[in-house]
Protein backbone atom coordinates (compact mmCIF):
# COMPACT_ATOMS: atom_id res chain seq x y z
CA UNK A 1 0.00 0.00 0.00
CA UNK A 2 2.94 2.20 0.64
CA UNK A 3 4.28 1.35 -2.78
CA UNK A 4 1.01 2.29 -4.41
CA UNK A 5 0.92 5.50 -2.41
CA UNK A 6 4.34 6.44 -3.72
CA UNK A 7 3.52 5.48 -7.29
CA UNK A 8 0.27 7.41 -6.97
CA UNK A 9 2.16 10.45 -5.77
CA UNK A 10 4.47 10.44 -8.76
CA UNK A 11 1.72 9.87 -11.26
CA UNK A 12 -0.46 12.54 -9.70
CA UNK A 13 2.38 15.05 -9.77
CA UNK A 14 3.23 14.11 -13.32
CA UNK A 15 -0.34 14.55 -14.40
CA UNK A 16 -0.52 17.99 -12.82
CA UNK A 17 2.61 19.02 -14.63
CA UNK A 18 1.79 17.31 -17.85
CA UNK A 19 2.97 20.25 -19.90
CA UNK A 20 6.50 19.60 -18.76
CA UNK A 21 6.27 15.97 -19.70
CA UNK A 22 5.93 16.86 -23.31
CA UNK A 23 9.49 18.19 -23.46
CA UNK A 24 11.34 14.90 -24.00
CA UNK A 25 8.73 13.80 -26.50
CA UNK A 26 8.92 17.00 -28.53
CA UNK A 27 12.69 16.82 -28.35
CA UNK A 28 12.55 13.30 -29.74
CA UNK A 29 10.46 14.39 -32.69
CA UNK A 30 12.56 17.43 -33.49
CA UNK A 31 15.87 15.59 -33.33
CA UNK A 32 14.58 12.86 -35.57
CA UNK A 33 13.37 15.46 -38.03
CA UNK A 34 16.78 17.13 -38.07
CA UNK A 35 18.45 14.23 -39.79
CA UNK A 36 16.62 14.33 -43.11
CA UNK A 37 17.10 18.10 -43.04
CA UNK A 38 20.82 17.77 -42.46
CA UNK A 39 21.32 14.97 -44.92
CA UNK A 40 19.30 13.94 -47.86
CA UNK A 41 15.56 13.23 -47.74
CA UNK A 42 16.05 10.43 -50.23
CA UNK A 43 13.81 7.61 -48.92
CA UNK A 44 16.39 4.90 -49.57
CA UNK A 45 18.97 6.74 -47.48
CA UNK A 46 16.47 7.46 -44.72
CA UNK A 47 15.44 3.85 -44.61
CA UNK A 48 19.04 2.78 -43.94
CA UNK A 49 19.56 5.46 -41.35
CA UNK A 50 16.20 5.13 -39.62
CA UNK A 51 17.06 2.61 -36.88
CA UNK A 52 20.15 4.52 -35.84
CA UNK A 53 18.53 7.93 -36.02
CA UNK A 54 15.49 6.90 -34.01
CA UNK A 55 17.68 5.26 -31.41
CA UNK A 56 20.04 8.21 -31.01
CA UNK A 57 17.10 10.59 -30.76
CA UNK A 58 15.43 8.37 -28.14
CA UNK A 59 18.67 8.16 -26.19
CA UNK A 60 19.10 11.91 -26.11
CA UNK A 61 15.45 12.46 -25.27
CA UNK A 62 15.64 10.13 -22.28
CA UNK A 63 18.72 11.98 -21.05
CA UNK A 64 16.98 15.32 -21.39
CA UNK A 65 14.15 13.95 -19.31
CA UNK A 66 16.40 12.93 -16.42
CA UNK A 67 16.56 16.45 -15.13
CA UNK A 68 13.04 16.22 -13.77
CA UNK A 69 13.77 13.01 -11.94
CA UNK A 70 15.25 14.32 -8.72
CA UNK A 71 15.66 18.05 -9.19
CA UNK A 72 12.32 19.28 -7.90
CA UNK A 73 12.37 16.87 -4.99
CA UNK A 74 15.83 18.11 -4.14
CA UNK A 75 14.81 21.72 -4.26
CA UNK A 76 11.66 21.46 -2.17
CA UNK A 77 13.17 19.17 0.44
CA UNK A 78 11.19 16.03 -0.43
CA UNK A 79 14.33 14.16 -1.33
CA UNK A 80 15.65 14.58 2.20
CA UNK A 81 12.46 13.10 3.54
CA UNK A 82 12.91 10.08 1.32
CA UNK A 83 16.43 9.60 2.60
CA UNK A 84 15.24 9.89 6.18
CA UNK A 85 12.42 7.45 5.69
CA UNK A 86 12.86 4.06 7.36
CA UNK A 87 11.78 2.56 4.05
CA UNK A 88 14.67 1.13 2.11
CA UNK A 89 15.92 3.88 -0.15
CA UNK A 90 16.70 1.46 -2.95
CA UNK A 91 13.02 0.57 -3.21
CA UNK A 92 11.90 4.18 -3.15
CA UNK A 93 14.39 4.91 -5.87
CA UNK A 94 13.45 2.06 -8.21
CA UNK A 95 9.80 3.06 -7.92
CA UNK A 96 10.70 6.61 -8.75
CA UNK A 97 12.70 5.56 -11.82
CA UNK A 98 9.89 3.27 -12.91
CA UNK A 99 7.19 5.92 -12.74
CA UNK A 100 9.52 8.37 -14.40
CA UNK A 101 10.06 5.95 -17.26
CA UNK A 102 6.31 5.46 -17.54
CA UNK A 103 5.80 9.13 -18.18
CA UNK A 104 8.95 9.99 -20.13
CA UNK A 105 10.25 6.78 -21.71
CA UNK A 106 7.11 4.91 -22.61
CA UNK A 107 5.71 7.78 -24.70
CA UNK A 108 8.90 7.64 -26.74
CA UNK A 109 8.41 3.95 -27.38
CA UNK A 110 4.93 4.63 -28.69
CA UNK A 111 5.92 7.69 -30.65
CA UNK A 112 8.73 5.79 -32.36
CA UNK A 113 6.04 4.35 -34.60
CA UNK A 114 5.37 7.82 -35.93
CA UNK A 115 9.07 8.48 -36.35
CA UNK A 116 9.44 5.24 -38.25
CA UNK A 117 6.77 6.51 -40.59
CA UNK A 118 8.64 9.75 -41.18
CA UNK A 119 11.80 7.89 -42.05
CA UNK A 120 10.21 5.26 -44.22
CA UNK A 121 11.14 2.43 -41.89
CA UNK A 122 9.73 -0.86 -43.20
CA UNK A 123 6.49 -1.81 -41.50
CA UNK A 124 7.36 -5.46 -41.03
CA UNK A 125 10.19 -4.48 -38.73
CA UNK A 126 8.18 -2.08 -36.57
CA UNK A 127 7.54 -4.72 -33.94
CA UNK A 128 11.24 -5.23 -33.37
CA UNK A 129 11.85 -1.49 -33.28
CA UNK A 130 9.24 -1.02 -30.60
CA UNK A 131 10.51 -4.04 -28.68
CA UNK A 132 14.08 -2.78 -28.77
CA UNK A 133 12.99 0.60 -27.44
CA UNK A 134 10.69 -0.99 -24.88
CA UNK A 135 13.61 -2.99 -23.49
CA UNK A 136 16.20 -0.30 -24.01
CA UNK A 137 14.57 2.89 -22.69
CA UNK A 138 14.24 1.56 -19.12
CA UNK A 139 17.96 0.75 -19.16
CA UNK A 140 18.63 4.27 -20.34
CA UNK A 141 16.40 5.59 -17.58
CA UNK A 142 18.35 3.62 -15.00
CA UNK A 143 21.69 4.82 -16.28
CA UNK A 144 20.40 8.37 -16.52
CA UNK A 145 19.15 8.10 -12.96
CA UNK A 146 22.62 7.09 -11.78
CA UNK A 147 23.99 10.22 -13.38
CA UNK A 148 21.14 12.33 -12.04
CA UNK A 149 21.71 11.07 -8.50
CA UNK A 150 25.33 12.19 -8.67
CA UNK A 151 24.64 15.60 -10.19
CA UNK A 152 21.43 16.60 -8.44
CA UNK A 153 23.16 18.97 -6.06
CA UNK A 154 25.27 20.67 -8.67
CA UNK A 155 24.37 23.95 -10.23
CA UNK A 156 25.36 22.95 -13.75
CA UNK A 157 24.31 19.38 -13.25
CA UNK A 158 22.21 19.25 -16.35
CA UNK A 159 25.17 19.93 -18.59
CA UNK A 160 27.37 17.42 -16.88
CA UNK A 161 24.86 14.59 -16.94
CA UNK A 162 25.18 13.62 -20.62
CA UNK A 163 28.97 13.55 -20.39
CA UNK A 164 28.78 11.12 -17.52
CA UNK A 165 26.05 8.90 -18.85
CA UNK A 166 26.48 8.71 -22.62
CA UNK A 167 29.55 6.44 -22.63
CA UNK A 168 27.69 4.01 -20.39
CA UNK A 169 24.77 3.89 -22.79
CA UNK A 170 26.84 2.76 -25.77
CA UNK A 171 26.02 -0.96 -25.38
CA UNK A 172 22.30 -0.22 -25.22
CA UNK A 173 22.56 1.89 -28.34
CA UNK A 174 24.53 -0.75 -30.18
CA UNK A 175 22.18 -3.62 -29.42
CA UNK A 176 19.03 -1.58 -29.79
CA UNK A 177 19.89 -0.04 -33.12
CA UNK A 178 21.29 -3.36 -34.34
CA UNK A 179 18.05 -5.13 -33.49
CA UNK A 180 16.01 -2.59 -35.40
CA UNK A 181 18.46 -2.47 -38.27
CA UNK A 182 18.64 -6.21 -38.68
CA UNK A 183 14.87 -6.53 -38.56
CA UNK A 184 14.63 -4.01 -41.39
CA UNK A 185 16.73 -6.19 -43.67
CA UNK A 186 15.25 -9.45 -42.49
CA UNK A 187 18.16 -10.73 -40.42
CA UNK A 188 17.53 -12.62 -37.18
CA UNK A 189 17.13 -10.34 -34.19
CA UNK A 190 17.13 -12.75 -31.28
CA UNK A 191 20.71 -12.05 -30.20
CA UNK A 192 20.58 -8.28 -29.72
CA UNK A 193 17.14 -8.47 -28.13
CA UNK A 194 18.33 -11.06 -25.66
CA UNK A 195 21.34 -8.93 -24.82
CA UNK A 196 19.03 -5.98 -24.22
CA UNK A 197 16.90 -8.13 -21.96
CA UNK A 198 19.95 -9.24 -20.01
CA UNK A 199 21.16 -5.67 -19.62
CA UNK A 200 17.69 -4.65 -18.48
CA UNK A 201 17.75 -7.28 -15.74
CA UNK A 202 21.22 -6.20 -14.72
CA UNK A 203 20.41 -2.51 -14.55
CA UNK A 204 17.15 -2.96 -12.69
CA UNK A 205 18.88 -5.03 -10.03
CA UNK A 206 22.10 -3.07 -9.68
CA UNK A 207 21.22 0.53 -10.53
CA UNK A 208 19.09 1.17 -7.41
CA UNK A 209 22.14 0.63 -5.23
CA UNK A 210 24.23 3.05 -7.22
CA UNK A 211 21.42 5.60 -7.38
CA UNK A 212 20.71 5.39 -3.64
CA UNK A 213 24.42 5.71 -2.85
CA UNK A 214 24.67 8.66 -5.22
CA UNK A 215 21.72 10.41 -3.56
CA UNK A 216 23.16 9.91 -0.10
CA UNK A 217 26.44 11.40 -1.23
CA UNK A 218 24.82 14.31 -3.02
CA UNK A 219 22.73 15.21 -0.01
CA UNK A 220 25.59 15.23 2.45
CA UNK A 221 26.24 18.92 2.12
Amino acid at each position, binding site marked *: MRLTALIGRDLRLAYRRRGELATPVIFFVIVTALFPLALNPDPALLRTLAPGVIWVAALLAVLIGQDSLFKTDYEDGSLELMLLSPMTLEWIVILRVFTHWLVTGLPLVILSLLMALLLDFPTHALGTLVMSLFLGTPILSCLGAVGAS*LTVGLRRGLM*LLPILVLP*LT*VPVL*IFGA*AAAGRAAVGDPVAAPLYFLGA*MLMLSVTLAPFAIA*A*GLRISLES
Partner: protein
Amino acid sequence: MFVWFHKLASPPFFYRFAEKLAPWLGWLSLLVILAGLYGGLWLSPPDYQQGDGFRIIYVHVPSAWISMFAYMLMAAAAAIGLIWRMKLAHAVSAAAAPLGASFTLLALVTGSLWGKPMWGTYWVWDARLTSELILLFLYLGYIALNHAFEDRRTGDRASAILAIVGAVNVPIIHFSVTWWNTLHQGPTVFFGPKAEMPPSMYIPLFIMMFGFMLFFAAFMLKRLQVEVLQRERNTAWVRELVEQS
Protein backbone atom coordinates in the same frame (compact mmCIF):
# COMPACT_ATOMS: atom_id res chain seq x y z
CA MET B 1 54.11 -6.59 6.98
CA PHE B 2 50.44 -5.83 7.36
CA VAL B 3 51.21 -3.22 9.97
CA TRP B 4 53.51 -1.45 7.54
CA PHE B 5 50.80 -1.56 4.92
CA HIS B 6 48.38 -0.09 7.40
CA LYS B 7 50.83 2.67 8.20
CA LEU B 8 51.01 3.43 4.51
CA ALA B 9 47.43 4.64 4.65
CA SER B 10 48.49 7.48 6.88
CA PRO B 11 49.07 10.51 4.67
CA PRO B 12 52.30 11.82 6.24
CA PHE B 13 53.90 8.39 6.24
CA PHE B 14 52.86 7.81 2.67
CA TYR B 15 54.19 11.20 1.62
CA ARG B 16 57.66 10.44 2.93
CA PHE B 17 57.54 6.96 1.45
CA ALA B 18 56.59 8.30 -1.97
CA GLU B 19 59.27 10.97 -1.77
CA LYS B 20 61.92 8.31 -1.37
CA LEU B 21 60.61 5.73 -3.80
CA ALA B 22 59.52 7.84 -6.75
CA PRO B 23 62.93 8.88 -8.09
CA TRP B 24 64.17 5.27 -8.06
CA LEU B 25 61.17 4.11 -10.01
CA GLY B 26 61.47 7.04 -12.35
CA TRP B 27 65.05 6.43 -13.34
CA LEU B 28 64.52 2.69 -13.52
CA SER B 29 61.57 3.15 -15.83
CA LEU B 30 63.66 5.36 -18.08
CA LEU B 31 66.32 2.69 -18.35
CA VAL B 32 63.82 -0.05 -19.04
CA ILE B 33 61.99 1.97 -21.66
CA LEU B 34 65.24 2.83 -23.41
CA ALA B 35 66.18 -0.86 -23.38
CA GLY B 36 62.81 -1.75 -24.79
CA LEU B 37 63.05 0.89 -27.49
CA TYR B 38 66.48 -0.29 -28.47
CA GLY B 39 65.17 -3.82 -28.75
CA GLY B 40 62.10 -2.76 -30.63
CA LEU B 41 63.46 -0.11 -32.93
CA TRP B 42 66.89 -1.46 -33.74
CA LEU B 43 67.19 -5.13 -32.92
CA SER B 44 63.94 -6.59 -34.12
CA PRO B 45 63.56 -7.09 -37.85
CA PRO B 46 60.93 -5.29 -39.92
CA ASP B 47 57.62 -7.10 -40.30
CA TYR B 48 57.29 -8.82 -43.64
CA GLN B 49 53.82 -7.38 -44.15
CA GLN B 50 53.91 -3.98 -42.55
CA GLY B 51 57.51 -2.96 -42.95
CA ASP B 52 58.77 -0.61 -40.32
CA GLY B 53 55.40 0.94 -39.56
CA PHE B 54 54.43 -1.78 -37.15
CA ARG B 55 57.06 -0.61 -34.67
CA ILE B 56 54.59 1.80 -33.22
CA ILE B 57 53.06 -1.14 -31.36
CA TYR B 58 55.92 -0.79 -28.90
CA VAL B 59 54.22 2.37 -27.69
CA HIS B 60 50.64 1.65 -28.67
CA VAL B 61 50.13 -1.68 -26.96
CA PRO B 62 51.70 -0.79 -23.61
CA SER B 63 49.75 2.49 -23.54
CA ALA B 64 46.48 0.71 -24.20
CA TRP B 65 47.24 -1.87 -21.57
CA ILE B 66 48.14 0.77 -18.97
CA SER B 67 45.02 2.77 -19.79
CA MET B 68 42.85 -0.23 -18.95
CA PHE B 69 44.87 -1.07 -15.87
CA ALA B 70 44.67 2.50 -14.63
CA TYR B 71 40.90 2.50 -14.91
CA MET B 72 40.60 -0.71 -12.94
CA LEU B 73 42.98 0.71 -10.34
CA MET B 74 40.88 3.86 -10.17
CA ALA B 75 37.69 1.89 -9.68
CA ALA B 76 39.24 -0.43 -7.09
CA ALA B 77 40.66 2.50 -5.15
CA ALA B 78 37.27 4.21 -5.35
CA ALA B 79 35.57 1.16 -3.88
CA ILE B 80 38.16 0.92 -1.09
CA GLY B 81 37.73 4.61 -0.37
CA LEU B 82 33.97 4.27 -0.10
CA ILE B 83 33.87 1.07 1.93
CA TRP B 84 36.74 1.68 4.32
CA ARG B 85 36.59 5.48 4.25
CA MET B 86 40.27 5.84 3.41
CA LYS B 87 41.13 9.30 2.21
CA LEU B 88 44.27 8.03 0.56
CA ALA B 89 42.29 5.61 -1.57
CA HIS B 90 40.28 8.50 -2.97
CA ALA B 91 43.53 10.34 -3.63
CA VAL B 92 44.73 7.32 -5.62
CA SER B 93 41.60 7.46 -7.77
CA ALA B 94 41.92 11.16 -8.35
CA ALA B 95 45.60 10.80 -9.25
CA ALA B 96 45.08 7.83 -11.55
CA ALA B 97 42.38 9.51 -13.62
CA PRO B 98 44.32 12.14 -15.56
CA LEU B 99 47.25 9.79 -15.90
CA GLY B 100 45.09 7.01 -17.25
CA ALA B 101 43.36 9.45 -19.56
CA SER B 102 46.73 10.56 -20.94
CA PHE B 103 47.73 6.99 -21.66
CA THR B 104 44.40 6.43 -23.36
CA LEU B 105 45.01 9.47 -25.50
CA LEU B 106 48.48 8.19 -26.31
CA ALA B 107 47.06 4.84 -27.31
CA LEU B 108 44.51 6.54 -29.54
CA VAL B 109 47.06 8.80 -31.18
CA THR B 110 49.55 6.00 -31.79
CA GLY B 111 46.73 3.82 -33.04
CA SER B 112 45.73 6.56 -35.42
CA LEU B 113 49.29 7.09 -36.62
CA TRP B 114 49.59 3.37 -37.23
CA GLY B 115 46.44 3.45 -39.26
CA LYS B 116 47.59 6.02 -41.77
CA PRO B 117 50.32 4.01 -43.49
CA MET B 118 48.41 0.75 -43.03
CA TRP B 119 44.89 1.63 -44.05
CA GLY B 120 45.24 5.04 -45.54
CA THR B 121 43.05 6.79 -42.97
CA TYR B 122 43.85 8.33 -39.65
CA TRP B 123 40.95 6.62 -37.98
CA VAL B 124 39.22 3.31 -38.34
CA TRP B 125 36.29 2.21 -36.28
CA ASP B 126 37.71 -1.09 -35.24
CA ALA B 127 36.72 -2.70 -31.96
CA ARG B 128 39.86 -1.89 -29.99
CA LEU B 129 40.23 1.73 -30.98
CA THR B 130 36.53 2.37 -30.44
CA SER B 131 36.70 0.81 -27.00
CA GLU B 132 39.70 3.00 -26.20
CA LEU B 133 37.75 6.05 -27.31
CA ILE B 134 34.84 5.21 -25.03
CA LEU B 135 37.31 4.59 -22.22
CA LEU B 136 38.64 8.10 -22.77
CA PHE B 137 35.11 9.46 -22.41
CA LEU B 138 34.69 7.51 -19.17
CA TYR B 139 37.88 9.05 -17.82
CA LEU B 140 36.83 12.55 -18.85
CA GLY B 141 33.45 12.05 -17.19
CA TYR B 142 35.13 11.00 -13.98
CA ILE B 143 37.47 13.98 -14.01
CA ALA B 144 34.62 16.37 -14.78
CA LEU B 145 32.50 15.07 -11.93
CA ASN B 146 35.39 15.07 -9.49
CA HIS B 147 36.03 18.74 -10.12
CA ALA B 148 32.40 19.80 -10.15
CA PHE B 149 31.97 19.76 -6.39
CA GLU B 150 32.98 22.50 -4.02
CA ASP B 151 33.71 20.07 -1.24
CA ARG B 152 36.51 17.78 -2.37
CA ARG B 153 35.34 14.94 -0.19
CA THR B 154 31.88 14.91 -1.73
CA GLY B 155 33.46 15.12 -5.17
CA ASP B 156 35.66 12.13 -4.39
CA ARG B 157 32.79 10.05 -3.19
CA ALA B 158 30.46 10.95 -6.03
CA SER B 159 33.05 10.22 -8.68
CA ALA B 160 33.87 7.00 -6.84
CA ILE B 161 30.35 5.78 -7.56
CA LEU B 162 30.79 6.77 -11.18
CA ALA B 163 34.10 4.93 -11.40
CA ILE B 164 32.58 1.74 -10.00
CA VAL B 165 29.57 1.92 -12.30
CA GLY B 166 31.96 2.55 -15.18
CA ALA B 167 34.16 -0.40 -14.25
CA VAL B 168 31.16 -2.73 -14.20
CA ASN B 169 30.21 -1.38 -17.61
CA VAL B 170 33.64 -1.68 -19.22
CA PRO B 171 33.40 -5.42 -20.00
CA ILE B 172 29.87 -4.88 -21.32
CA ILE B 173 30.99 -1.98 -23.48
CA HIS B 174 33.92 -3.96 -24.80
CA PHE B 175 31.73 -6.92 -25.60
CA SER B 176 29.09 -4.83 -27.34
CA VAL B 177 31.67 -2.93 -29.40
CA THR B 178 33.34 -6.17 -30.48
CA TRP B 179 29.95 -7.57 -31.45
CA TRP B 180 29.10 -4.40 -33.33
CA ASN B 181 32.37 -4.58 -35.16
CA THR B 182 31.84 -8.13 -36.36
CA LEU B 183 28.38 -7.12 -37.46
CA HIS B 184 29.68 -4.55 -39.86
CA GLN B 185 32.73 -6.44 -41.01
CA GLY B 186 35.11 -3.74 -40.03
CA PRO B 187 38.79 -3.91 -40.95
CA THR B 188 40.44 -7.09 -39.79
CA VAL B 189 42.03 -7.13 -36.41
CA PHE B 190 44.64 -4.45 -36.19
CA PHE B 191 47.15 -6.48 -34.41
CA GLY B 192 47.70 -10.14 -35.08
CA PRO B 193 47.51 -12.85 -32.43
CA LYS B 194 50.44 -13.06 -30.09
CA ALA B 195 51.25 -16.60 -31.17
CA GLU B 196 52.56 -15.33 -34.47
CA MET B 197 55.06 -12.99 -32.91
CA PRO B 198 58.69 -14.03 -32.92
CA PRO B 199 60.67 -13.52 -29.70
CA SER B 200 62.53 -10.61 -31.23
CA MET B 201 59.18 -8.84 -31.24
CA TYR B 202 57.48 -9.84 -28.07
CA ILE B 203 60.47 -9.55 -25.80
CA PRO B 204 60.93 -5.83 -26.47
CA LEU B 205 57.16 -5.51 -26.15
CA PHE B 206 57.14 -6.97 -22.66
CA ILE B 207 60.13 -4.88 -21.72
CA MET B 208 58.26 -1.80 -22.87
CA MET B 209 55.18 -2.84 -20.91
CA PHE B 210 57.28 -3.26 -17.81
CA GLY B 211 58.94 0.08 -18.39
CA PHE B 212 55.59 1.80 -18.85
CA MET B 213 54.33 0.23 -15.63
CA LEU B 214 57.33 1.57 -13.75
CA PHE B 215 56.82 4.95 -15.30
CA PHE B 216 53.16 4.87 -14.33
CA ALA B 217 54.05 3.92 -10.77
CA ALA B 218 56.64 6.69 -10.48
CA PHE B 219 54.30 9.29 -11.90
CA MET B 220 51.44 8.10 -9.72
CA LEU B 221 53.57 8.46 -6.60
CA LYS B 222 54.45 12.00 -7.55
CA ARG B 223 50.86 12.90 -8.34
CA LEU B 224 49.73 11.27 -5.14
CA GLN B 225 52.10 13.47 -3.22
CA VAL B 226 50.45 16.51 -4.74
CA GLU B 227 46.95 15.15 -4.06
CA VAL B 228 47.85 14.36 -0.47
CA LEU B 229 49.25 17.84 0.07
CA GLN B 230 46.13 19.41 -1.35
CA ARG B 231 43.78 17.34 0.72
CA GLU B 232 45.69 17.70 3.94
CA ARG B 233 46.67 21.31 3.63
CA ASN B 234 45.07 22.29 6.92
CA THR B 235 46.88 19.75 9.00
CA ALA B 236 49.90 20.26 11.21
CA TRP B 237 52.26 17.97 9.36
CA VAL B 238 51.78 19.78 6.08
CA ARG B 239 52.41 23.12 7.71
CA GLU B 240 55.62 21.75 9.19
CA LEU B 241 56.67 20.45 5.81
CA VAL B 242 56.12 23.83 4.20
CA GLU B 243 58.03 25.58 6.95
CA GLN B 244 60.93 23.21 6.62
CA SER B 245 61.45 23.74 2.92
